[in-house]
């Protein structure tokens, strides 16, 4: 283990050190996101993820952002456990009828100003589940949505681009503004 740690120290950060096609794009995104976060936020951005009925693949891609290859936290974006500490609610899933209340309560517990990001096709419009008796529909059926990140699921790079767009477009979120979505910015 110390061998691995020593090697990691010598070789420098693992973040996007692997050379594969597409990595350049991810690196660019990370750099841009870092600059934007510093410029626009001035401090860290706290994200609370809420699964409102997803199939779990969207969650796994959000989790992947914490792996050493993306390492979102070093950009000042962190995932927090409580909605009370959150600036952003990152919502996945076609809101199920059984999760509607949980989602609403989480939103209410999040202090203003706050952003809502609908992540994944389900959260945007209910996707394949839209017609179900058990599904309310996209997040915008329940909450004002500031940004959508399309994909089924969106890849980590898509999520990074979405978060960058959020920071670039809005700066700090405004209290009480039920902002319309940023459209289908392919993130």
């Amino acid at each position, binding site marked *: *283990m110390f061998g*691995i*740690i020593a090697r990691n120290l010598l070789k420098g950060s*693992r973040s996007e050190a*692997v050379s*594969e*096609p*597409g990595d350049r794009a991810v690196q660019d995104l990370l750099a841009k996101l870092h600059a934007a976060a510093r410029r626009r936020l001035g401090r860290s951005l706290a994200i609370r*993820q*809420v*699964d*409102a*009925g*997803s*199939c*779990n*693949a*969207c*969650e*796994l*891609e*959000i*989790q*992947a952002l*914490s*792996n*050493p*290859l993306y390492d979102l936290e070093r950009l000042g974006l962190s*995932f927090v*456990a*409580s909605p009370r500490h959150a600036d952003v609610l990152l919502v996945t*899933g*076609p809101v*199920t*009828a*059984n*999760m*509607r*209340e*949980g*989602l609403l*309560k*989480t939103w209410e517990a999040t202090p203003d100003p706050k952003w809502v990001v609908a992540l994944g096709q389900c959260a945007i419009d209910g996707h*394949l*589940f839209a*017609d*179900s*008796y*058990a*599904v309310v529909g996209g997040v915008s059926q329940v909450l004002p949505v500031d940004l959508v990140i399309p994909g*089924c*699921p969106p*890849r980590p790079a898509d999520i990074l681009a979405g978060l960058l767009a959020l920071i670039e477009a809005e700066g700090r979120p405004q209290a009480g503004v039920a902002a319309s979505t940023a459209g289908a910015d392919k993130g």
Partner: protein
Amino acid sequence: MTVDRISLTDFLAALGTPAARHEPWPRFELSVEGWTGLRDRLAAVPAWSLLGLWGETGMVHLALRDDTDGDIAVASLTCPQQSFPSLSGVRPAAKRLERAIQDLTGLAADGLDDPRPWLDHDRWRLRHPLAAVPGAPLGEPAPYPFLPSDGEGLHQIPVGPVHAGIIEPGHFRFTCQGETVVRLEERLGYVHKGVERLMKGRLPEEAARLAGRLSGDSSVAHTLAFCLAVEAALGVTAPRRAQLVRAVMAELERIANHVNDIGAIANDGGFAFLLAECAVLREQVMRTNERCFGHRFLMDRVVPGGIAVDLKQEGRQALADLLPVFAKRFRKLVSIYDAKSSLLDRTVGTGVVSSDLAHRFGAGGYVGRASSRGLDARRMPGYAPYDELDFQVPVLPEGDVNARVWIRIREVEQSLDLIAQILKRLESGPGRAFLPESHAVSEGMALVEGFRGEILAWVRISDGGRIERAHSRDPSWFQWPLLEAAIEGNIVADFPLCNKSFNCSYSGHDL
């Protein structure tokens, strides 16, 4: 043949009439007397394990396997009285399945000792969505009555449905005495999306996309199970090349999930180093998936009749790049896990599931295999191409978190080896067979080994070639109840560790 030695199929054949087209195993329609006779027989023959229990309009189906000889059959009961005798007394895992049947079909399980709804939280637009005539919702949802617990100094801790981490929603109700968990009660159903009803009336190709989103981490396994069931019903076999490529996808999925779990379990044991290292390995698999098949989760790559995306030279190269590097790095991480006594201190002896319980609940996957229940659908009943491949099914007796980690470790090693074997066999050929037109109602069933364990899929296809009824039983149905047992007597602080070592699916269970 004495009555004691009679096979499962023969026993059911003597009780009922065979359904016209049900492949590859028979289905028998029983009378109520036949059903209760079967129930009594199940009490006497523990080796006849529950594979699935599901309902449809006016009817219930029970899939069983004799774990000693692999004999598989389905028993069905038509319910003109809108009820059926409960099997929960002889197969405890039937309890939640019956509660779900009641919620979805309106059929009542007679003798079921838990009257509470399970998936239906009284929030849906209608009641009994799979009944002939669904009803209106009851109205204001009543608070869910958790089981009472009386005793000196007991307190309760409610957790969820929205959890602190980036995970799926569900509710856990802990009853504790000081730090020790006296009882855990789960409440699930929060992510019920009504998939089975959505599948109704769809073409198999459309329904397969839904199957691939029952539990996103098991997209390949669920889609494969669904497609094999469809292919069985329609009497078509995917071409050999498709079978092999499907298996590559399935093993990549297994590796990605297992390695992720190993890291996450270590992290909950206070060792973040392995989480970071394992997450990198997982990410490399996901990127390889994308290079090979154009999707990180391989969604919609398995289709009825075969595969939608074939493995090309670029993909073979991606696998050749990945496999040796992965194997070497993984070996290193395993030796670190094995040598880290402070971590083993957390995982050894924690969250024990007894072999008896694993057998009684018919638990599969790493949960079953870490508790001596050594079944694997790739072996029994088996399906192509695994019958021609060489692999071991690891089994351990301890039943603790550590054993569940080791089963995963061994399975990753086996999967890496399986992919190498498959690639050697890969010859050019078609990737997809045309589905024949359907002229008669037909039914099919399949068992597939996902990373969590056995997935059962069942379909009935109409004479017009559309899905009349489809059912998928995620392995988590038989594992969630064991998590309740595993945590008993452990301290609350060990729950995340136990929970992660199970990693049950919410979405796959809630459907």
